């Protein structure tokens, strides 16, 4: 397993958010991290992405402490999409995606054919070919989020971490986006980890679910084993019955 956390404590704004957490991200699968507000799921993702340094314990990428490795080498293995990133004024879709090639270029390195190929692949994977020359500001919310995902795709990393990628999108666009992530995983074997809010979507579109509560991992495993009346009550304080989804047979949460 390539990405692991061992015994990490994480403080954020001087407050300890995560305590003694061990976690292994399964390779080549779509993983969702869920949990109530303030349980530390975004903090966990940022720690896995080396944005936050744990006060205790370590995050390992390919067996090496992620903070000991050169940040550029990490960037070739692990891509990250933060929550609601901001695009510079006037930047076009193609230009934004091209910036995802940064870790692959040397200080004076020219734009190479490999860079062009990666950019075009990212454009076509996200279905943005026709919009390549549009400014980001002119896109709809769903298209904009696809453009950002395309940027992380151009980074060409085997692991992709996304912090609440579906926030501010309406339901059809959320579904659209999660299908895109699933396709990326199937086509190239990428490991995809996202923090999600919606339990139903997490259950439906992930292979592996991590439920967090008060800075700890409460349960993890396939959705059908993890999303149960029991965990929902413990993690969210939500009284609910879980029935099989009539289409996909994944767990469906029905609040009581």
């Amino acid at each position, binding site marked *: 397993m390539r990405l692991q956390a061992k015994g990490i404590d994480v403080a954020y704004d001087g407050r300890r958010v995560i305590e003694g957490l061990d976690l292994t991200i399964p390779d080549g699968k779509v993983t969702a991290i869920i949990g109530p507000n303030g349980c530390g799921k975004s903090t966990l993702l940022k720690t896995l992405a*080396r944005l936050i340094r744990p006060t205790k314990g370590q995050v390992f990428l390919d067996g090496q402490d992620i903070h000991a490795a050169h940040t550029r080498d990490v960037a070739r293995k692990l891509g990250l999409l933060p929550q609601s*990133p*901001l695009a510079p004024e006037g930047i076009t879709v193609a230009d934004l995606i091209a910036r995802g090639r940064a870790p692959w270029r040397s200080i004076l390195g020219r734009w190479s054919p490999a860079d062009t190929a990666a950019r075009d692949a990212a454009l076509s994977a996200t279905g943005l070919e026709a919009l390549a020359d549009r400014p980001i500001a002119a896109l709809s919310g769903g298209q904009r989020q696809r453009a950002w995902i395309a940027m992380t795709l151009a980074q060409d990393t085997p692991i992709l971490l996304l912090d609440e990628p579906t926030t501010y999108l309406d339901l059809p666009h959320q579904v659209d986006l999660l299908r895109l992530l699933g396709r990326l995983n199937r086509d190239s074997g990428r490991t995809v980890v996202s923090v999600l809010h919606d339990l139903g979507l997490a259950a439906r579109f992930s292979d592996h679910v991590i439920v967090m509560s008060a800075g700890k991992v409460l349960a993890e495993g396939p959705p059908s084993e993890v999303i149960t009346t029991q965990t929902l009550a413990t993690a969210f304080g939500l009284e609910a019955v879980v029935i099989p989804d009539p289409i996909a047979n994944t767990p469906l949460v029905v609040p009581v």
Partner: protein
Amino acid sequence: MIRLSGLLLAAILLGLAFGEVHLPPSAILRWDGAAELLIGVIRAPRVAVAVLAGAALGLAGALLQSLLRNPLASPDVLGFTSGAGLGAMLVVALGGGALSITLGAASGGVLAALAVTALSWKSGIVPLRMILVGIGASFTLQAITQFMMTRLTGAEAVEAARWLSGSLAARHWGHAMQIGLCLAVLLPLAALSLRALRLLELGDEVATGLGLHVTRARAGIAALAVALVASAVAVAGPVPFVALLAGPLAVRFGAPMLLGAAVVGAIVTVLADLAARGLIDGVQLPLGVMTGILGAPYLLWMLSREMERGRL
């Protein structure tokens, strides 16, 4: 960019051809003794200093504006220029020469930058807080500079007053060489910083994700901007508003941010200097007065535009 280069060339030619003393075109074409003295000895070094100092200021402004992602974050608003002015002023008061004035300006600028950064730090940097702290710092630094002036003797005070309002009067080739050498070192560094800047534009988290040492890159770019400001202030005094104007104007012309800002900075400075010395007969205004008159309305306009877009 082609338009801007053309404009720069035109501004340089205008700066050489016009000035306090009128020189008929026939005399310029004949290149007689008067033309050689006036253009070759008096105007050419002055225009050269204007081009180089303007470029340095424009570049410094664009670097800081991109770094803090705020069009108002320029070295004059942030107090760096006032710091460089005070540093140079102290050296002038102590009777230092050209090189020590440069060093004084540089250390003043660096100290002001460090102080403003430290004072705005409160579990992180909020650009707007930094701008407000910079405004306060400029106030204090300018007051101290004013006080220093009252301690000088008459002739020194007049010279210092001119220098403080940003003046290019009586610049010679030595000044041009001095800032030229500074730029020869700093421009390649600015070109190298472009890559980091393009990543920082995407936000700290994305930039880290793409393999950038964000803190290190930030500090390096800020230091570069301060060095640029200091080298311009050392030869031209604390000229206000050029750094603030150049970046946004360059974007308006569709030019690349950094290179465009340098060229726009040069154009604005050459033209403002020309207006300052040739607009009103018999009056030589300091360059800084002219950029203030031109730049302040621009700042006001930009404020109202930012407000309309609801970003301020």
